[in-house]
C-alpha cells in the first residue's frame, strides 16, 4: 500500500516537472527575451499561453507537498528541517512569480508592468533551480531520517547543483517546445522559428548538462549512479531517445508529436530517479514502508487520489483542449 502511495506521489512529481516546469521555462524565455521592444512579441505569446493554465499547473506542487506530509510525515519533516533554506527561497520565489505575473496582466502602465514582469521572470529561473537542489539533496541521501541535516551542504553540493542547473535547462527546453507549438498554432512563422531555435539550444544544453551529470554523480553519489545505471538505465535510455527524436523532429514533425516526445523525455528522467530511489524514500536509511503513515490514512489518500483522477483529469483535459483550440481569451 505504501508503495502505491509513493507511486502516486511520484506521478505528482512528474506532473509538476512537466506542467510546472514548462511554466517556469516560459519565465526563463521571458527573462531572456530582450528589452521592451525586442522582447514584446515573445512576452505576448508567453502571456497568452500561460495565463489560463498556470494556476492549475501550480497545484501539482501542493498535491505533492500534501501527499508527502500525509503519507510520509516523518520524511517530510526530515526534508523541511534539513533543506529549509532552498525550500524557503523556493516559496518566496513562488510568491514573487505568481504575483508578478498576475500584476503584469492587469497593468497597462509601462513602469509597473516592467517591474512586475521582471519579478516574474527572475523568480521563474531561481525557483526551479532551488527545487532542483532540493531533489539533488534528497536523491544523494543527504537528508537524515531524523532530519536536521547539514543546512548548507545539504543543498550546496555537486549533485544538488547539478539538479538545479538541470532543472533550469529542462524547464527552458520544455517551454520552448510548448511555445513553438503555440506560435505555430497562431500561424506566426517568425516566432515559430525563433522558439524552435531556442528549443534546439536548450535541448542540446540539457543533454550536455546530463552528460556532465554522469561524471558528477559517479564522483558525488555513487549509490545513485549505480542504481541509475542498472535499474534506472532503461528509463534513462528511453529518455535520451525521446529527447533526441524530439530535437530531430522539431523542424518537420507535428507539434503534438514533438510535445509528447519532449514530455516523455522529461517524465522518464524523473521516473528514473524514482526507480533508482526505490525502496528508499531518503538515501539508504529510510524506506518507503517504514516512513509510511498508518493504513487508514493511506487508504484515504488512495481514495482522494482516485476521486481526483476522476474529477481533475477530465477538467484538466477540458481546460487544455479549450486553451489549445483558442476558445479561451
Amino acid at each position, binding site marked *: 500500500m505504501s508503495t502505491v502511495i509513493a507511486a502516486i506521489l511520484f506521478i505528482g512529481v512528474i506532473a509538476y516537472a512537466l506542467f510546472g516546469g514548462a511554466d517556469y521555462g516560459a519565465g526563463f524565455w521571458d527573462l531572456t527575451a530582450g528589452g521592451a521592444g525586442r522582447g514584446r512579441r*515573445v512576452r505576448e505569446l508567453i502571456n497568452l499561453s500561460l495565463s489560463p493554465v498556470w494556476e492549475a499547473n501550480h497545484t501539482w506542487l501542493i498535491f505533492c507537498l500534501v501527499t508527502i506530509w500525509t503519507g510520509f510525515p516523518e520524511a517530510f519533516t526530515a526534508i523541511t528541517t534539513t533543506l529549509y533554506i532552498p525550500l524557503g527561497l523556493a*516559496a518566496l520565489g513562488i510568491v514573487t512569480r505568481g*504575483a508578478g505575473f498576475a500584476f503584469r496582466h492587469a497593468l497597462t502602465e509601462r513602469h509597473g508592468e516592467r517591474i512586475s514582469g521582471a519579478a516574474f521572470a527572475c523568480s521563474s529561473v531561481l525557483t526551479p533551480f532551488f527545487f532542483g537542489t532540493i531533489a539533488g539533496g534528497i536523491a544523494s541521501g543527504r537528508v537524515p531520517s531524523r532530519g536536521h541535516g547539514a*543546512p548548507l551542504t545539504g543543498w550546496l553540493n555537486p549533485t544538488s547543483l547539478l539538479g538545479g542547473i538541470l532543472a533550469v535547462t529542462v524547464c527552458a527546453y520544455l517551454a520552448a517546445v510548448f511555445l513553438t507549438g503555440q506560435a505555430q498554432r497562431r500561424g506566426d512563422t517568425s516566432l515559430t522559428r525563433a522558439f524552435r531555435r531556442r528549443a534546439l539550444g536548450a535541448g542540446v544544453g540539457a543533454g550536455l548538462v546530463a552528460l556532465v551529470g554522469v561524471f558528477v554523480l559517479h564522483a558525488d553519489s555513487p549509490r545513485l549512479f549505480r542504481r541509475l545505471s542498472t535499474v534506472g538505465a532503461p528509463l534513462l535510455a528511453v529518455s535520451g531517445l525521446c529527447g533526441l527524436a524530439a530535437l530531430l523532429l522539431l523542424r518537420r514533425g507535428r507539434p503534438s508529436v514533438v510535445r509528447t516526445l519532449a514530455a516523455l523525455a522529461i517524465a522518464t528522467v524523473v521516473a528514473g530517479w524514482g526507480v533508482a530511489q526505490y525502496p528508499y524514500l531518503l538515501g539508504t536509511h529510510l524506506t518507503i514502508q517504514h516512513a509510511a503513515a498508518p493504513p487508514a490514512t493511506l487508504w*484515504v489518500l488512495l481514495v482522494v487520489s482516485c476521486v481526483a483522477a476522476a474529477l481533475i483529469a477530465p477538467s484538466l483535459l477540458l*481546460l487544455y483542449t479549450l486553451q489549445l483550440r483558442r*476558445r479561451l*481569451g
Partner: protein
Amino acid sequence: MVLSALPGVADPPQLLPAREQMAFTLGFHIILVPFGVAFTFMMLICQYRALRRHDPQALLLAQRWSKVAAVLFAVGAVSGTVLTFEMGLLWPGLMGPYGSAFGFPFAIEGLFFFLEAIFMAIYIYGWKRLPPWPHFFTGVVVTLAGIGGTAAVIAVNSWMNQPAGIVMRNGRVAEVIPSRVFFNGAFWWEMVHMLLAAYIVAGFLVAGVYAVDLLRGRRDHYHRLGFLVPFTVAAIAMPLQFIVGDTIARQVYDREPAKFAAIELVPTTGDHVPETLGGLYIDGKVRYGIPLPDIASFLAGFRSSAVIKGLDAIPAAVRPTEAVVNVVHLAFDVMVGSATLLLLLSLWFGWLWWRRREVPTNRWFLRGSTVAGLLALLSLESGWVVTEVGRQPWTVVGLLLTRDAVATQGNLWLLFATVLAIYACVGAGALFVLRAMRRRWSEEGTDAVAVPYGPGSAPAPTGRAPGADDV
C-alpha cells in the same frame, strides 16, 4: 505577544518569530479567501440576472468582478502555497508526529483547489468565446469548489481545537479514523462560521466600493446593482452569523474551557459570572472592564447560576498566560463589537428597503456602508485571533504544545523579515493594480477595450511597429 506557557521552562528562541510569521501570513491569506469563496458567488448572481433579464449592466458588473477575482485569486493561490511550505518549515513538530492524522483534509482541499483553479481559468477566459450558460456553470463549479475547500481547511483547524479520531501508541499515531478526524466535534459550526464570514467580508467590502460611488451621486442602474447585490448577500448572512457564533460560544464553553475562560475573562470558577466588556487581566485580577452582572453565565447556560470554569481550573502547567488571556479577550470583544455594528447596519438596510423597495440614499447609511467592509475584515481577523491564540499554549489541544511543534533550525527572524518585505510588495502591488483597474473603468466607462488580466491585454505598445520581425 509573548505567549510562553510553562513557568520555569524556557521557550525555544524560534517560537516567537515562527508564531509571528504564521500569524502574519495566515492573516494576509485570509483577507483573500472571501474573494475566492464568496465574491465569485456575487459575480454569478449578476451574471444570472444578466442572462435571465438581458441586463447588460449586470453583465458588465459580472465581467469586471471576475477580473478582480482573478487577480486576488492569483495572489491567494501563491500566499496559500507559502502556508503549505510553512507548515513544514515552521512546525515540523506538528507535521512529523501528526501529519498522518490530520494531513488528509489538506489533500481534499488540494482536490477542491485544483477544481477551483481549473474552472476559474475557464470562467475568466471564457467570456468571449464560450456559450453563455455553459460558461455560467463553470462559475458555479468555482463557487462550489470554494465551499468544499473551505470545509476541508476548517476540518484541519477544528481538529486542532478539538482533536478526535486517532489512537496514540508509544507517543506515535498508531491508528486513524478518518471520518472522525474530518467531522470532529468542532467541524460543522466552525465551517459555517467561516463560510458566512467570507460572504460577509466580501459582500461588505465590494458594496463599500459602490457606496462611495452612490455618495458621489452616481446613482445609475450599474452602481445601484453593484451595491445592492453584495450588500444584500452580506446583510442576509449577518444575522445568521450571530446565531452560529452564539452556538459556537456555547460549544466552546462545553468543550474548550480554557479558551472560554480567556474569552470571558474569568479568573476563578463560579456562577453568576459577569460579562466583562473591555478590561484587562492583570496579576490574576480583572481590571478596567465594564462588568454586566450575570450575563456571561446566562449566555453560557441560559441561567444566571450556570457555573463557568475559570482560569484557576486549568492546570498551572498549561494555563494560558496573562498576555494570551488579554489578547483573546480583547480580540473577542472586537469581533463581537464590530459584528454588532454590522448587524445594526444590516437591520437598517432591511428597514429602509422594506419601506422604499429601492437602494437607500440616506447619506449616513451609505457612509456606514463605505466602512462596513473594513469592519467586517476586522471582525474576521479578530475571530481568527480568538480561535488561534485562544488555543495556546496548545497547537493541538491536549496533545501537542506549541513549544514542541516549532522548528529549531535556521534563523527564523531573517526568514520572517524577508517574508514581510515580499508580502509588503505583493500587498501594495495588489492594491495598486486594483486601483488602476478601477480608475480605468471609471474613465472609460465600457470594457470594449482590452480585458485586463487576460489575453487581449497586450503589453503596452513599445513604440516599435507591431510585427517587427526581430525575435
